[in-house]
């Protein structure tokens, strides 16, 4: 199984600012994903981070709001831009193994 770390683990931000979340994996992986979990809700896929090309976003998520970088096969970043209180969520990075997906510990974001 992959070992995934995320930074920061939590943050409190002011509305209108941006936060970049980092995801580091201990091995090279082809597919990386970013999920959002709003308070008391399930996980929703934001986008698939592709190495060497633009991320693929799910319906309801746009690049201007959630820009993603994937500079190599072990690292990705998600930026939450121009934040509002509705962006308060846990953001999780995930990678696909040969059969299973594994998740990082998450970044708990509170926007005031």
């Amino acid at each position, binding site marked *: 199984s992959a070992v995934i770390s995320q930074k920061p683990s939590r943050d409190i931000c002011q509305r209108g600012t941006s936060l970049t979340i980092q995801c580091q994996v201990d091995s090279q992986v082809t597919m990386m994903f970013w999920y959002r979990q709003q308070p008391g*809700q*399930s*996980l929703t*896929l934001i986008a*698939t981070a592709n190495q060497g090309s633009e991320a693929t976003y799910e319906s309801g998520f746009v690049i201007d709001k959630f820009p993603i970088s994937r500079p190599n096969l072990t690292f990705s970043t998600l930026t939450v831009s121009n934040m509002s209180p509705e962006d308060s969520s846990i953001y999780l990075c995930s990678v696909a193994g040969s*059969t*299973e997906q*594994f998740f990082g510990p*998450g970044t708990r974001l509170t926007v005031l």
Partner: protein
Amino acid sequence: GIQVEQSPPDLILQEGANSTLRCNFSDSVNNLQWFHQNPWGQLINLFYIPSGTKQNGRLSATTVATERYSLLYISSSQTTDSGVYFCAPRGNSKLTFGKGITLSVRP
């Protein structure tokens, strides 16, 4: 996309009790995972089970793909089993999460 329904939505158990959590899904799948989200938010892989039955200690899972459901069995529950249990089938390349089952195990 795939529709996922988990039941019951909430469950309270006395420590030592057994329980069955159910996941129904609307379409054919080639992968299904069960996760436990602990009170600190960490998602823990429990089972990868596209079909058949697997056991891991006090937990076991069964998926009947032809009838589009999966079951997670918890035996001799412990307080550390508390949290949210998610079922996540995958039809194409994306996992689709159910709403989860919130389990509270009381000492």
